[in-house]
């Protein structure tokens, strides 16, 4: 394809967030919509997530990751989204100038009326969790192993220990078992599971893989290749408990210890980042602090379900299309949304009450401490309750959502800020 000089909307990344944003931008009236993707094919990390469990919300179907991606890739081509694959974005400016490079086109710049950041997230590495021990081969992130096993056809080892009970770690435990490897143990430093409970059941329990909570890796043993790891129990403050050490022989250690939104490009553009989510501060239309720069999906905060990433992408794409057609909304007041009692963070960080006149606004949050009892999810204005919703429990691994409705418009308009809280019923 020929690269145009100008585009209405340029989306960075072709994972579920980027695909949804591009499709929504196009469907809502943006003319030239381009996705720039660094991989050689569109779809993002979904392509290596060959397990089921995607699409239960969006399609009411239980699909494997590649199938879920394929539906959106097909739709994007159908509505006329343009793609630049195998292309790396190097820089984005606050006035939406994008510099990129590829083998085919060399270095080039393009001008966008609106940009949607959809770079997703990256796995936390060994260095980021400061694991002691030697540095042999055989220590990988779970997602790297997933790519090798599911896409490229390599087995990274025979006997595994997995650190971290995130979804990717548990899913890889099952996948490696399927391919004939032995998963000796899953260790989790927290006193609770960090992934979904159903993955504990169908990935670990089904195959008698032992999970040890409040345990971590004290030492990695081996010179050229991992030979064993030393596991240890920890107390509530993550201090090793002496005498609980255990040597577990293995040739590979997988890390499933969290995901971090990938915001190098966002920062270069001057986008402000929330230190708690590690993603941009956004409004209810997923606009960042820079007018015309939006962000969608795991680049904002790490979701547990791809369906919610798609939904965020659709909102961001629609917002970008609106900006392209109507120009910036001037003089619109935004209202901050703050994390209150037992809420670690909340997205969006602020909202435009005018948008509430048109549609629901979903407020998403993560609980700070698990509550294994019925809870209220509350939205408050000052000390007063605006709206609440009952949930059977609240767990840090499972995002909580509460919708604000057009019926709340008048009260929200008059508020100076909203606070969300999760409390026992």
């Amino acid at each position, binding site marked *: 394809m020929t690269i145009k000089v100008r585009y209405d909307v340029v989306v960075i990344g072709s994972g579920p967030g980027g695909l949804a944003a591009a499709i929504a931008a196009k469907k809502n009236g943006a003319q030239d919509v381009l996705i720039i993707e660094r991989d050689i094919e569109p779809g993002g990390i979904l392509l290596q997530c060959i397990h089921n*469990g995607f699409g239960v919300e969006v399609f009411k179907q239980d699909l494997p990751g590649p199938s879920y991606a394929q539906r959106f890739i097909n739709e994007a081509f159908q509505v006329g989204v343009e793609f630049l694959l195998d292309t790396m974005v190097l820089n984005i400016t606050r006035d939406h100038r994008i510099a990129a490079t590829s083998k085919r086109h060399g270095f080039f710049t393009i001008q966008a009326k609106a940009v949607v950041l959809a770079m997703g997230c990256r796995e936390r590495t060994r260095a980021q969790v400061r694991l002691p021990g030697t540095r042999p081969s055989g220590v990988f992130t779970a997602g790297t192993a997933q790519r090798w096993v599911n*896409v490229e056809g390599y087995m990274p080892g025979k006997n595994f220990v997995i650190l971290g009970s995130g979804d990717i770690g548990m899913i890889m435990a099952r996948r490696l078992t399927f391919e004939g490897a032995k998963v000796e143990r899953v260790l989790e430093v927290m006193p609770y599971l960090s992934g*979904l409970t*159903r993955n504990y059941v169908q990935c670990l329990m089904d195959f008698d893989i032992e999970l040890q909570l409040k345990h971590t890796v004290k030492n990695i043993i081996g010179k050229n290749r991992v030979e064993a790891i030393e596991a240890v129990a920890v107390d509530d403050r993550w201090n090793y408990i002496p005498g609980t050490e255990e040597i577990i022989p293995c040739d590979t250690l997988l890390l499933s210890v969290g995901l971090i939104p990938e915001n190098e490009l966002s920062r270069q553009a001057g986008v402000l980042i929330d230190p708690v989510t590690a993603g941009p501060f956004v409004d209810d239309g997923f606009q960042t602090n820079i007018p015309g720069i939006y962000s969608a999906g795991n680049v904002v905060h790490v979701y547990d379900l791809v369906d919610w990433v798609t939904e965020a992408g659709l909102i961001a794409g629609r917002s970008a299309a609106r900006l392209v057609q109507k120009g910036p909304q001037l003089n619109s007041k935004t209202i901050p949304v703050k994390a209150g009692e037992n809420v670690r963070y909340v997205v969006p960080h602020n909202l435009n009450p005018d948008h509430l006149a048109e549609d629901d606004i979903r407020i998403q949050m993560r609980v700070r401490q698990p509550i294994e009892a019925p809870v209220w999810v509350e939205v408050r204005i000052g000390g007063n309750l605006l709206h609440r919703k009952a949930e059977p429990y609240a767990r840090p691994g499972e995002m909580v959502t509460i919708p604000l409705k057009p019926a709340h418009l008048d009260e929200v308009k008059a508020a100076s800020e909203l606070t969300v809280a999760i409390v026992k019923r």
Partner: protein
Amino acid sequence: MAKLSENVICVTCPKGCTLIVTRDGETVIDVENGCKRGKDYAQQELIDPRRMVASSVRLKGGLHPLLPVYTSVPFPKPRIPELLALLRKIEISTPVTLDQIVLENVLDTGINIHASREMKVVTG
């Protein structure tokens, strides 16, 4: 036979509800905490546990050496190792379309194995 009450975590959807299942032998009498699909899951899990299975088969002539595949419906749990051993022997060629049947009525279960994505022919 005595009535039994036990907790079963439902794996039907990402909610992962903890169902309280009261049963008499293999007959489910009552399920608390679940939706309609949860009740079906509880009964199925007692008499014939099944799981969705996703894996891969060898692929010739595509962008990657593997094609991801999945079972159209949940597959009998005890027979999963047999299914995986069979999938390891399969090799197919591009082009492949999304949801194309890779194996029909696999191991006489009446269940089909489908391609999880399309794979075009890559030349050169």
